[in-house]
Each structure stands twice: as structure tokens, then as C-alpha cells.
């Protein structure tokens, strides 16, 4: 009865096509922004890409752009170490928090705990960086100098992506139809059996999406990492060695870079973008191959 209205009332058709146009324009603009950003990065990095062989970004001795050395790999490694390390800490913690809110905590406690996590998600990254620089780095320094290190970057990043993982995992768990859980209870499954056997598989797609989102944030995070990671361009020998990430490389040097140095920084940006694309492509592929 309700959908027959559509045929009776003519203006709806107009609204429909209007909406269609607006939505299409929106979609084109979003896609265009992405394309224009890629184009911009390539154009800006062209002065260096056209002059020197791309192999040098992998084979040069060091990153000293003013002396003509453009090694980017230690920063790529630093970016990966920091974000993977943060994910390794944040995934278990985040999922555990989500399970706690969804199934274990009393409603009152769950409400407050969730508020707290939401608050954590809203703290600007520079505040985390500031806290890291004035509190965390001196603490790590007492343990093992110099303090500004891969470990500090991982810990700060963990704090930043933890709420993303927790809140998306929680929403995914809440979206599991209540009948599933009732059926599981009716079959006499324990609480953990229900979570492990029913809720988790049903919510997996949402949880994975949250993890990918968190990974994107960890890879791209700039200011907080810049303040605590030490920013020395090198392959770290351990958790206490300083690192520099691709994103903080840009923020650190862009303000005063000119000519080839500037173009080389745009190449860091390009590399960062390719890396994020590859990782999200990989996540999509993983998801598909699991379903198959």
C-alpha cells in the first residue's frame, strides 16, 4: 500500500531524479578529489622523479636531501613497525573492551566505560603527542635512553587507535541479531561459547572494518608521532631506538624545504598513499578470500 503512492504522486518522480543527480554529483566530486590529490602529488614530486632514478629511493645511503641522498626505506620500515606494533597492542585491548561493554559489564558500568572510551576518541592527537613528550618519553628515558623511541610511538598510537577499534567492534557486536544470542543461550552454550561461536563470527566484518580504519589512522598519524618518535632516519635495532615515519617526515621538513628537497617530500607522500592503498586492497582481498 505504501509503495503504490509512488505511482500516484507525480512529484516524487522529480524528487527521485533530482536526488539521483545530487548523489551522482557528490560521488563524482569525492572520486575527483582522490584523483586530484594523486595527480597533485605526482606533479609536485615530478622535479625529482624526472631527474633521478626511482631506484635511488631504495639504494641511497641515507636521507639527507640537501646533500642529494634520498633513501626512504628506513622511514617506510619505521611507519610499518610503529603502526603494526600499535595494532598488536590495540586489537586485543580494543576487542576485550568491546566484549566487556557488550556482555560482561553491568549496564551502569558499561555506560560510563563507553563514555570514557568515546572521550578518548575525541582527544586531539596533538594532546597525545604533548603528553607523550612530557610524560612518556622521560619515563622511557629512565628505562633506556634516549626515550624518544619506537616504543613511545607505539604506545601513543595504541592509545589513539584503541577507541576506534573498541567502538567499531562494540557497534558490530550490538548489530548481531538478538535471536542468534537467544538461540545460543537456548542451546545451553556458556557465555564465552556464545561469544566465540556466535557473536564473533557474525560481527567479524564490522570488527575487521574497524581495524582497517584504525590502521589507516596509525599509518597517517603525524603530530603525535613526530613529538615522541625521535625522528632519526634509521632502521631501529630495538624498541628503544628512535624512528621516523613517512608522515612525520613531511611535517618535519616541509615548512623549510625548497626545490628537490620539497619534491622528495612529496614522494614520501606518494609512497604513503601507495602504502595505504595496498594495505586496504590487501584487507579487501583477505576478506573476499575468507568468504570464498
Amino acid at each position, binding site marked *: 500500500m505504501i509503495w503504490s503512492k509512488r505511482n500516484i504522486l507525480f512529484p516524487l518522480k522529480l524528487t527521485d531524479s533530482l536526488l539521483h543527480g545530487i548523489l551522482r554529483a557528490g560521488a*563524482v566530486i569525492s572520486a*575527483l578529489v582522490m584523483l*586530484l590529490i594523486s595527480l597533485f602529488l605526482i606533479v609536485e614530486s615530478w622535479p625529482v622523479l624526472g631527474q633521478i632514478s626511482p631506484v635511488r629511493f631504495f639504494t641511497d645511503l*641515507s*636521507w*639527507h*636531501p*640537501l*646533500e642529494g*641522498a634520498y633513501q626512504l626505506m628506513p622511514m617506510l620500515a619505521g611507519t610499518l613497525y610503529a603502526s603494526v606494533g600499535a595494532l598488536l597492542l590495540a586489537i586485543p585491548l580494543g576487542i576485550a573492551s568491546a566484549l566487556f561493554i557488550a556482555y560482561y559489564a553491568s549496564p551502569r558500568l558499561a555506560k560510563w566505560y563507553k563514555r570514557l572510551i568515546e572521550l578518548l576518541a575525541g582527544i586531539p592527537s596533538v594532546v597525545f603527542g604533548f603528553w607523550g*613528550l*612530557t610524560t612518556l*618519553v*622521560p619515563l622511557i*628515558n629512565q628505562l633506556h*635512553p*634516549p*626515550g*624518544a623511541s619506537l616504543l613511545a610511538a607505539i604506545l601513543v598510537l595504541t592509545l589513539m587507535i584503541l577507541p576506534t577499534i573498541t567502538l567499531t567492534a562494540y557497534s558490530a557486536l550490538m548489530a548481531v541479531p538478538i535471536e542468534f544470542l537467544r538461540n545460543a543461550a537456548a542451546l545451553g552454550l556458556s557465555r564465552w561459547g556464545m561469544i566465540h561461536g556466535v557473536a564473533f563470527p557474525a560481527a567479524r566484518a564490522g570488527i575487521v572494518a574497524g581495524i582497517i580504519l584504525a590502521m589507516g589512522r596509525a599509518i597517517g598519524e603525524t603530530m603525535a608521532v*613526530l*613529538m615522541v618518535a*625521535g*625522528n*632519526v*632516519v634509521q632502521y631501529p635495532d630495538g624498541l628503544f631506538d*628512535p624512528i*621516523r615515519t613517512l608522515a612525520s617526515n613531511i*611535517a*618535519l*621538513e616541509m*615548512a*623549510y*624545504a*625548497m626545490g628537490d*628537497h620539497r619534491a622528495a617530500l612529496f614522494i614520501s607522500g606518494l609512497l604513503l598513499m601507495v602504502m595505504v592503498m595496498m594495505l586496504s586492497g590487501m584487507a579487501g582481498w583477505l576478506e573476499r578470500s575468507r568468504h570464498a
Partner: protein
Amino acid sequence: MSMSDSKKFLLICITFFVLGFGGLTCANAASGRLVLTGSSTVAPLVGEMARRFETMNPGVRIDVQTGGTSRGINDTRNGTADIGMVSRALKPDETDLHAFTIALDGISIILHANNPVTALSKQQIIDIYTGKITNWKSVGGADARITVVNKAEGRSTLELFLHYLELKNSQIRPHAIIGDNPQGIKTVAGNPNAIGYVSIGAAEYEAERGAPIKLLPLDGVDATIANVRNGTFPLSRPLNLITSREPQGLARHFIEFARSLQTHDLVEAQYFVPVEVN
């Protein structure tokens, strides 16, 4: 359907480009115009001054381009630029040019306030920064590993520091690399075994406000703004505007403005030291 889509897409692309280039070309249509090129250290400061000058003198447009001190000198000599920006004193073979100092740049070595070391020689600083000395014990301090804090590539502070020590950046073995002055001060304030260097203006400001850092004297001269101003502090340099002949008209007007009291706040905001011009 797909045909019209791709046409629309093309149209949007063209619109973007036309808007972009149109914006660039119509910007050149002002009456009084000055071109300044040169040092990337001076350019941000002069850029701020130019913006204020433009607001005070509508119709005047000042174009500030970077490219290094040597470009500033070349462009001024061959007339491409009206005024050059140079981040050092003029050399003896550059006496054909007229220099006007608009600010002074000085940097200070900073240590944590609890560090017992009170002075370092130039050679000791070189050895610490190149990784030959790694423990404070070797220079009369506590038995602790030195944390070497260096500046990011491209910063003028780094350039001046390297020039003073006669080193290349690739010879330095840092444990932490920082961007701006406040970050450097916080890094040293949070680590009793760190050594770093920042603009004297920034260091004095923070030390007065209770940051646990101390400014080391160099060659027996205290690191103070006053000593930068009177020219005795070794790790400092003048920031100059240069012209090929005695400046006239708009160029003269701008140089006078840049050296006047009206720009002292801009100079201090960039952690440079204003010069006293009567």
C-alpha cells in the same frame, strides 16, 4: 549515458583548471610592485613584513621568492630582483651591494638545568655531535649517555649550527630530531642527559618562564639576546636586505619599514632578534 558522464567529468576538470590559472594571472595586475628573492631563512620573516606592508599601502604588491642567499645576490646584481635577502654579512667581494640588517639570528646550545656541565668547547661540541663523545663523564659531567638532539633538514638553525661547527649534516649522529624551537626545548627539558640547540630568543623566553633548561656560553660569551645584538656571541649572524644601488622610492620605503619598530613583533615571533635603528 556513459558518454554524457565522461563529458561532465571533463567539464568539471576544465572548470577546475580554468579557475586555478585565472586566479594566478589576475594577481599580477597591481600598480606598485617589488620583487624580493633570496635566503629561505629571511623569506618567511620578510613575507610577514610584506603582508603587513601591503595592508598598509593598498595597491602595492610584494613578491617574495626563496632560492638561497646566493640567488638573492645574483638576482640583485642582474636586476631580476629589486631587493635580495641574505642570511649572512656581506663578503669582501660584495662591497658593490648595499646591505640593511633587518634582524639578527643567534642560536644557543641548551642543556637540562640539572646537568652539572657548565661550558663546552667548540671541539667538545663537535665530538658530541659526531658521536666521538657519548658519555657526559668525558666532559666533566655525570656518568650518563648523551642524548644528541638535532634539527630537521632545511631549518636555518641547523644550517647556522653546521656552518659554525664546519660539519655536514650527514656527519652528525643524532638520537632525536626535532622540528621547531618549542619542541626542542621540551625535549631537552624532559631529558636530563640531552644536548640540543635552539634560537636564543626562544630559549631565553622559555628559561625565564621556568623551563628547566640552561643556555651554555660559547667561547666564554654568554648566550643572551644582548650579546647577539652587540655582535660578541659567535653563533649568530645578521639577516640582511640588499640592493644594488642606494634604494629609491618603493624599495627604500619598504626597507625603512622592515627596519622600523612596526615590525619588531614579527621579528620576535620568528625568534629572531630585532635590531635597534634610530
